[in-house]
């Protein structure tokens, strides 16, 4: 086992991916965000510069380019940077990439990865804090991966690139600094396999992305109140591992879902619906969601802190579930 920072694990993944497959091209390049880590990315450029391009501010154009290149046999990974910018490229992602394989009756494959940073970032305001994954979950034909730890980001990014389907890779800038363990011979993580990040017996707390880390902190605090929380991380929304969640609920009978997409038609809403459909009889109390409130993300720090799935809101929900 090695301990790495999340951004180090992500960079390792990019390096290994670029080394292993010549068909992988990187389009746009804020995979390590606009952070102090950008120098790390420069190392990649020194080695593989001919497979890395820096396009103009034309999300529609370059996401279309990435999609077309994938149709022609490359495996591009295109970085949209701030998740909200995918709205500029929406027609190419949702209407072309997502539909191509199906519309062609299975003939045209689109092995493209759309990478983005979602969520509340601290002062991003309404147009830089979007979490588009819920809307994208509603576009059949797209796979969605959403890591929450160094081990996950490395393993999932590899699978995303290897997949023949258009994949949305949903990352979060608040994860970049965290540290975690990676096994020595780490392997790609298959899609559709959830991860129990913390074993517990009283409540099943399902969370995604950065909210997983917030949930783990909440669980540590709740442990002092003798509430034993099991934290389950789906890791991919499409394909989605419901079985692991149902197994957890069999044990705990109580569910809280915490996620950063807005409440209405959000990720938590869909997970709740699936649990209600398949695991209703296992529940002893209603399902509780802790989502970002249904308001455009406000700029001011106390307002932004108020609307997200914070540790205190998660704790309140868990307490209510066991009361």
């Amino acid at each position, binding site marked *: 086992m090695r301990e790495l920072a999340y951004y180090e694990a992500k960079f390792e993944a990019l390096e290994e991916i670029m080394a292993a497959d010549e068909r992988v091209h990187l389009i746009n390049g804020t995979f390590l965000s606009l952070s102090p880590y950008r120098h790390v990315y420069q190392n990649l450029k020194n080695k593989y510069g001919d497979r890395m391009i*820096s396009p103009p*501010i034309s999300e529609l154009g370059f996401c279309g380019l990435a999609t077309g290149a994938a149709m022609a046999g490359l495996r591009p990974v295109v970085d949209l940077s701030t998740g909200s910018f995918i709205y500029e490229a929406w027609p190419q992602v949702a209407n072309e990439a997502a539909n191509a394989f199906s519309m062609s009756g299975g003939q045209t494959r689109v092995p493209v990865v759309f990478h983005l940073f979602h969520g509340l970032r601290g002062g991003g305001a*309404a*147009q830089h804090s979007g979490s588009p994954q819920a809307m994208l979950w509603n576009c059949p034909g797209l796979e969605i991966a959403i890591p929450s730890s160094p081990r996950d980001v490395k393993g999932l990014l590899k699978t995303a690139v290897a997949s023949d389907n258009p994949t949305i890779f949903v990352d979060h800038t608040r994860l970049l600094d965290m540290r975690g363990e990676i096994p020595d011979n780490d392997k790609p993580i298959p899609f559709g396999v959830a991860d129990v990040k913390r074993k517990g017996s009283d409540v099943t707390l399902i969370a995604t992305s950065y909210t997983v880390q917030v949930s783990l902190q909440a669980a540590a605090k709740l442990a002092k109140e003798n509430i034993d929380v099991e934290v389950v991380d789906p890791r991919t929304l499409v394909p989605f591992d419901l079985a692991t969640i149902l197994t957890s609920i069999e044990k705990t009978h109580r569910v809280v879902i915490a996620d950063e997409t807005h409440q209405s038609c959000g990720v938590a809403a869909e997970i709740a619906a699936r649990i209600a459909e398949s695991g209703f009889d296992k529940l002893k109390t209603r399902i509780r969601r802790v989502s970002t409130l249904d308001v*455009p993300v406000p700029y*001011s720090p*106390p307002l932004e802190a108020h609307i997200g799935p914070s540790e205190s809101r998660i704790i309140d929900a868990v307490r209510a579930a066991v009361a």
Partner: protein
Amino acid sequence: MPTKKENPRELIDLLRRMWLIRAFEEKASALYAERQIVGLLHLGIGQEAVAVGACSLLRNDDYVFGGHRSHGHAIAKGADINKLMSEIAGRATGYCGGKGGSMHIVAKETGFITATGVVGGTIPLALGAAFAAKEKKQRQVAVVFFGDGAGQAGPFHESLNIASLWRLPVIFVCENNGYAEFTPLSAHTKIERLAQHAKTYGIPASTIDGNDLFAVRDAMRNAVEECRSGKGPIFVECLTHRMRGHYEGDPAKYRELSQLAEWKKKDPIARVVRVLKSKKALTDKQLAAIESEARGLVEKAAEFALSSPWPAANEVDRQVTA
């Protein structure tokens, strides 16, 4: 050099306004360094001539739209710097109650309709305002400020086409400062002058020295007149430079220091001062007073902002829908 139309008294007012913007931006930078302002902060130091030159020729009821680097545009259009500083600091007394922040300024009473964090995002919006203005028949115009980075975005082209087809009273003001975020324009397109795109769609266009207040005023004077008389859109490309990085915290290593030095010589404020001095319309003492007055007002604005309360948590539920 100014045309005969500029009179010294007016010029001194313009200088005051340019200094107000400069002082404001420098203070915002200091507050950001102290973490009194969070998030993303994009400053327009060095681009004051465009903001002031353009907005000084507009009526209060003309519409102005900006982008992520729009503090200067708002101030030039007459925004209250107390409310502006508060907004950037996220306080309840800000223009948007702290909800918008630096990139989403709205100062409706001055005609500054909105800024946006999406590159080129307000260009289509400006078309809409121009469309409404045309319907209202009160000879209003809409002005939209954007950078060279927006020139490669689809909506920019769609907007040029529509504005031209429908002869909308919109003035496209492109601040070509040579960099789109951290990349020089040449890496984004083979086109050197965005005015070329306007000409493709049949829109009269010019490229001028954006650091020359008088050149900007001349171009805008003409543009406003043409627009108001219903002749259709105009495109003015202002060559300029931002003296800071793309945003606060950007060390701008992609920029040669020599380039920075070159542009310092072309500082827009210094150039206006030179002209005024050559006309013997400004003494050093007066100049010092202008600077200190600007800084004084900005200090007061900062005090106002930092002593203002944060918005209450339940504010999030208000103003989501009308």
